[in-house]
C-alpha cells in the first residue's frame, strides 16, 4: 500500500535510492553537506556528496564535465534563478555537447532547483523560468506537482542520459501525499490527468495544479465538470494527451504562475492552435501571472498571481462561448 510522504521528503528519498543503486550518482551544491553529520555525507561519503562555493558556473560546468566522464551529478541549486548566472551551461553547453560531438559523448546531469516561492521573496527569487528552458533540443525539464511525481520524476531524471532541469515548487514542499511503494518511476513526456472531467480542460503545472484542483472542486459544486491535466514535464511536452482531453471537452484553460508570454501556458496554447484547433469550441483562456515582476508586499503579490477564483472565472468565460457565437 502507498506511503504518505512530504513533497520534500520524496525528493530526498529518490536521490538517496538512486545513489544507493548507482555509485556514479554524485550530489553537491551550496549550503549542503556542511558536516559529517549530514545524512547524505553519512551514507555516501565526502567524495560523492560535497559542498560548493557560490559559483554556479563552476558547479554546473563541473557537473557537465564529470558527466562526460561517467558520473551522474545531481546539483542542488536551491532557487532556479541562481541558474541564470550560469545559463550558458544550462542551455548552451549541457544540451549541445553531445550533438556537436556527433554523438560521441552524453551529459547525464540533473540540475535541481526550487522555484515560484510566493512568500515575499520579491522580484528576483520568486520567478518561474522554465519557459526559458523549453524548446532547447537536448534539454529536459520536470515540474512535479505532488510527492509521487516528485519521487518518480527525480528517479527518472537521474537515470536519464540527457541533461534534466528538475524544478520543485517551494509552496508544495511541505504537502503530504501518497507515494506508490517500490522503485517508483514516472516517465518523462507523459502528462497525467489529475482529475477527469467533461466540460473543460484545465492544463496546469506544479503549484498551479493544486490551485486548479481546488478550482475544479468549486466548479463541481456548480455542476461544471473540469478535467485537470498536468504535463509533469514541459520538455518533452505531451501535447497528445492535452489534445485528447480537448477533443473531449472542446474547451481549454491554461494556468501558469509565470507572466503570460514567458509561460508554458502560451506554448501549449500555441501547440493547440495548430494541433487541437479543430476540437476547440471556444478560444483558449490563459490564467497567468500579470505582467509585472513579483512584488514583495502580500496584497500586491497575491494580486499578480493566479488564484482559484481567477481559474473559476476563466473556466466560466470559455464555457460562456458557444460554437454558434464563433
Amino acid at each position, binding site marked *: 500500500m502507498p506511503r504518505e510522504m512530504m513533497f520534500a521528503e520524496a525528493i530526498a528519498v529518490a536521490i538517496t535510492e538512486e545513489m544507493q543503486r548507482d555509485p556514479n550518482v554524485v550530489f553537491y551544491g551550496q*549550503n549542503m553537506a556542511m558536516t559529517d553529520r549530514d545524512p547524505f555525507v553519512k551514507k555516501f561519503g565526502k567524495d560523492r556528496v560535497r*559542498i560548493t562555493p557560490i559559483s554556479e558556473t563552476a558547479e554546473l560546468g563541473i557537473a557537465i564535465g564529470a558527466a562526460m566522464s561517467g558520473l551522474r551529478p545531481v546539483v542542488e541549486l536551491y532557487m532556479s534563478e541562481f541558474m541564470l*548566472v550560469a545559463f550558458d551551461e544550462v542551455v548552451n553547453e549541457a544540451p549541445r555537447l553531445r550533438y556537436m560531438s556527433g554523438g560521441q559523448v552524453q551529459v547525464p546531469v540533473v540540475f535541481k532547483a526550487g522555484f515560484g516561492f510566493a512568500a515575499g521573496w520579491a522580484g528576483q527569487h520568486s520567478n518561474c523560468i522554465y519557459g526559458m528552458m523549453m524548446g532547447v533540443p537536448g534539454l529536459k525539464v520536470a515540474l512535479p506537482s505532488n510527492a509521487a511525481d516528485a519521487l518518480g520524476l527525480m528517479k527518472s531524471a537521474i537515470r536519464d542520459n540527457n541533461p534534466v532541469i528538475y524544478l520543485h515548487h517551494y509552496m508544495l514542499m511541505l504537502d503530504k501525499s501518497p507515494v506508490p511503494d517500490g522503485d517508483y518511476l514516472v516517465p518523462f513526456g507523459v502528462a497525467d490527468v489529475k482529475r477527469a472531467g467533461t466540460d473543460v480542460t484545465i492544463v496546469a503545472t506544479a503549484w498551479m495544479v493544486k490551485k486548479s484542483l481546488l478550482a475544479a472542486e468549486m466548479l463541481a459544486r456548480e455542476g461544471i465538470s473540469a478535467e485537470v491535466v498536468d504535463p509533469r514535464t514541459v520538455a518533452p511536452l505531451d501535447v497528445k494527451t492535452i489534445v485528447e482531453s480537448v477533443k473531449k471537452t472542446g474547451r481549454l484553460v491554461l494556468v501558469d504562475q509565470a507572466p503570460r508570454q514567458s509561460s508554458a501556458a502560451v506554448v501549449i496554447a500555441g501547440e493547440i492552435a495548430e494541433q487541437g484547433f479543430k476540437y476547440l469550441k471556444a478560444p483558449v483562456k490563459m490564467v497567468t501571472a500579470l505582467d509585472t*515582476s513579483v512584488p*514583495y508586499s502580500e496584497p*500586491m503579490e497575491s494580486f499578480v498571481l493566479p488564484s482559484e477564483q481567477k481559474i473559476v472565472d476563466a473556466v466560466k468565460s470559455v464555457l460562456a462561448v458557444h460554437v454558434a457565437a464563433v
Partner: protein
Amino acid sequence: MAAQNGLGKDRLIWMYTQMCRIREFEERVKRTFVEHPGTIRGHAHLGDGAEASIVGALATRRENDLVMPSYRCHGYPIVLGTPARALMAEIYQRKDGICKGFGGSMHLADPAHHFPTASGIIGQGIAHAAGAAYAAQVKKTGQVVYSFFGDGSSKQGAFHETLNLAAVWKLPVVFVLENNGYQAYTHVALEDANAMAGDPLSQKAKAFSIPGETVDGTDVLKVYEVVGRAAERARAGHGPSLVESKFYRFTPHGNAITVPPVPTQFQEHESIEVYGNKAEFEAAKKNDPIAKFRAVLVGNGTFTEAEAKRIEDGVRQEMEEVVRFALASPLPAPEDALNYVWA
C-alpha cells in the same frame, strides 16, 4: 581629548551613534518575527556585528559618494540618512516603505541618499557599483563608489570580472569584502581557497594588480583608516582597491526558510546550530565592535558613561517610534503592483 585619526569629538560620537542605531534597528527587526509574526515576509538578513565595518567605511565618504551594498543592506541607508522608519516600513511591506512595499528587506534602495539599489543575486551588485563608478568617471563628478559584498560573494564570477575591468579602467570604486566568516551556513574555510590555505582573502587583489588589505572590521577606527586610504586612492584617479574587513555576524544568515503559514524566526547562529562550535560564537560576542568602541570613547574621554547612556536611550526611543510608525503604516493597494514595471 585628542582627536582620533583626525576625527573630532562630534564625529566620533556620530559614529558611535550610527553603530548603535544599526544594532537597535536590527534587534527590532529580529524581535518583530516574535512579536508580530507574519509582518516580515521572505528572507531578512541582519547586519549586527558589522556596525564598525559599515560605519568606519561610510565615515570616509564625501558628499555624493555612492554606496552599493549586497542584499544584507539595512545598515548602510541608516547611516546615509534614510529615515529608519521608511526602511522598517519597507521591511514590514508597507505603503510608506522606502520602496513602497515593492522590494522588501533584500532590495532596499534610496537614490536620494546615495544608495541606488541592492541586488539579491550574489555578486551582481559588485558590477552595478563599478557601473556607477564608470558614470562618475565619464561625468567627472568626483564621486567615489563604495561596493560592499560578502566573503562568499567573492567566489562569484562577477567579482573577478568586475575587479579586473575596474582596475583596467581605473574606476573610482572601493571594494569592501565583508568577511563575516560565513556564506549562509557555510564556513569560509570550506569554500574559499585562500582561507583554506590560511591566506587572507585580500590576496585576491593580486589577480588584478591592485592594492589589497585586510583590516579588523570590529575596530571602527582601523576600518576608517584603511578604507579611507582606498577611497582617497580612488578619488585621486588611481583606481580601485580591495579591502577585506573581518568581523562576525551575530545572528544567523537569515530567518528560517519555510512555507507559509508556518511561522518563521531566527534560529541559533550557524556556528552552534550547524557546527556545534559555541566557543567560536562566544568569543565573537566578547569582541562586540560597539562595546569596544564605547570603551575607547569613554576611556579617552570623548564621552562619559552618562552621555553614552543618553545616546543609547535616544536610539532605543527612535527605533521604538520607527516600529510604531511601520506597524501603523497601511499596506499597499493590490493594484499598486501594476506600477513601475516600465519607465
